[in-house]
């Protein structure tokens, strides 16, 4: 939406078609939209149940997408947060071991914020690569979750509240879907309308330039990681409430699914480009794919293969990556011509 402003600033005299072309070129969701369209078509032709049972599909999208939304805030800044999976598990366990529900939810969400702050501390203050630091966090938190749960799933003391939480609120909308939509709107507004959120793009695009422009880069990194930690803790709370139990090793598939959603949605892993809408589209594509496969009675390993292939396809068909392939082919072709000549000359000189 702000992109439209820049378009008007950049070229006011463009025709409508030119504007459309420019908008498409500036957006990053192209691949996500294409994939979603393909999957929706296939689903419509083979398994129309995906759409009639839209409650299930929406629930699945919310399950995949919630963590991905928070993750996108971190990816926009060119960082990775691998700890989301075990943040989800740890906060769920925290919720379950505290007898009082309200207190438990607050403590669980605070856990997420704390994890985010620790992640940001390691990345921004100590200066360790975010991939390594959050990887350590992933294991540390899994250990913590296993210790405080005594290595077994913990039952929620207030199981009735959990069951009530799983019931539809308005029509088919369960609280999970509602929270997902609210989080989506909140982060979308934050990233595209709020100055602090817009600065995420600047930090991701070029941290040094962002710093020189007066953006408090370290504070932004704290904000991003805390959003990610909070949202994954929220997902943990929702999971625990709906299942009325907390599994200390939950979330092993969340890591792949959330990264896949963010990457399919066109978020550039080195930061600076991408959008929350893209993540939503990516989560939608993955969710519909999973539900279609499940409803068609496909085995779980085949589902894994499909999702892995989609992720592989998404990460290799990034426009930048395709450009890299083209340039490497071109340079290989040109270098072959150039290298052969000098290589043959020294041979001659040594021979003579």
């Amino acid at each position, binding site marked *: 939406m702000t992109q439209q402003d820049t378009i008007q600033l950049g070229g006011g005299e463009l025709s409508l078609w030119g504007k459309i072309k420019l908008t498409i070129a500036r957006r990053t969701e192209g691949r996500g939209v294409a994939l979603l369209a393909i999957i929706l078509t296939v689903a419509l032709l083979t398994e129309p149940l995906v759409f009639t049972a839209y409650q299930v599909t929406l629930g699945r999208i919310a399950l995949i997408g919630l963590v991905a939304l928070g993750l996108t805030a971190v990816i926009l800044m060119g960082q*990775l947060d691998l700890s989301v999976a075990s943040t989800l598990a740890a906060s769920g366990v925290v919720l379950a071991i505290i007898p009082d529900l309200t207190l438990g939810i607050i403590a669980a969400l605070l856990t997420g914020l704390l994890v985010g702050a620790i992640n940001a501390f390691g990345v921004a203050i100590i200066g360790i*690569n975010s*991939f*390594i630091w959050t*990887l*350590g966090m992933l*294991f*540390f938190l*899994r*250990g913590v979750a*296993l*210790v405080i749960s005594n*290595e077994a799933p913990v039952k929620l003391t207030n199981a009735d509240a959990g069951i009530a939480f799983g019931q539809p609120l308005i029509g088919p909308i369960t609280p999970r879907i509602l929270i997902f939509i609210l989080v989506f709107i909140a982060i979308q507004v934050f990233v595209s309308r709020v100055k602090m959120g817009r600065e995420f793009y600047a930090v991701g695009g070029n941290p040094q330039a962002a710093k020189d422009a007066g953006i408090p880069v370290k504070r932004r990194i704290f904000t991003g990681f805390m959003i990610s930690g909070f949202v994954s803790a929220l997902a943990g709370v929702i999971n625990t409430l709906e299942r009325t139990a907390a599994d200390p090793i939950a979330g092993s598939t969340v*890591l*792949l699914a959330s*990264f*896949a959603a963010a*990457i399919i949605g066109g978020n550039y*892993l080195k930061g600076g480009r991408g959008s929350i809408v893209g993540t939503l589209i990516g989560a939608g594509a993955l969710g519909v794919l999973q539900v279609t496969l499940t409803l068609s009675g496909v*085995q*779980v*390993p*085949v*589902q*894994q*293969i499909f*999702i*892995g*292939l989609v*992720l*592989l396809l998404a*990460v*290799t068909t*990034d426009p*930048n*990556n*395709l450009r*890299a*392939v083209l340039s*490497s082919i071109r*340079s*290989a072709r040109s*270098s072959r011509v150039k*290298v052969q000549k000098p290589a043959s000359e020294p041979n001659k000189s040594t021979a003579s």
Partner: protein
Amino acid sequence: MSKNEPITQINAMAQAPEEQPKQKSRRGVEWFAENGIFVFTAVLILSAAIFVDGFASLQNITDVFHRAAPIGIVAVGMTFVVISGNYLDLSVVAQVATAAVIMIAVSNEYGYFAAVLAAMLAALIYAIVNGVAVGYFKANAVIVTLSTTYVGLGLLRLLSGGSIFFGPPDGALAQFGAGKLGPVPYSALVLVAMTLILAFVLNRTNFGFTVRSFGINERATRLGGTNTGLVIIGAFLVTSLSAMIAGFVLAAFSNTAVSAMSTGYDFQALAAIIVGGTSVFGGKGSVLRTLLGVIFVSVLSNVLVLLNIGLDTSRWPLEF
């Protein structure tokens, strides 16, 4: 003789970044990262031998080696990918399991030769898919190998039906797994042999130098006329072949194979590599350091088990 000259030159180049002046705040950390592991390992082994009951027994040390061998073999191979600046190869989990299952399932039917061939083919496929995506498409190695892990494990579960395969109890594989040379199990000998071979490849061959120089400066290596894509495929191939051998060792050790048998190998191997002092940003590090890291990590977890600290708590120190 003339071949030695470029080798020493590149060797000097590889060490050059260590001599450059560094930021003051980083100096202590980097000294630790470079030399701390020698001190830590020595202190750990000495104090364990003195204070922990049962550590210094022959039986226990044999067990430590037995446990360390498969992870160690994966780690020394993965060092290549890490040194080339591509973080890690998560798909070793799928690769180790694939090699183990192929080794037992195929050898039961068609003999060991066919099993080794099939496993090598699988390793080659993994290396090419990972290497092409990372080397030519310049895709993020973490995400690429995460997705190949899923595809690989999915395929393995689909084809094996998720069942457990048993080898014949008196087969050559089982004998190898139980065999010892004096007090040292064969698997530990494989680890040492792999370390020496890969150390030779990394430090004494053109390929090894190119991997290292790619990790230090990707652009310069490419402009120097190297086919960088092939180098990356090569680095992934070394990792895949090591993971394959680790799968064989693991299959021989238990004489069974199942698709879930290598869970956690990716990060345990990475932990050993990082503890050994190999830089995750590429360029710096060595295979021998990784071996030291493997020894450190396995001795540490052994000590924690001997001290009766819970399995879950023993995972914490691995990360820090």
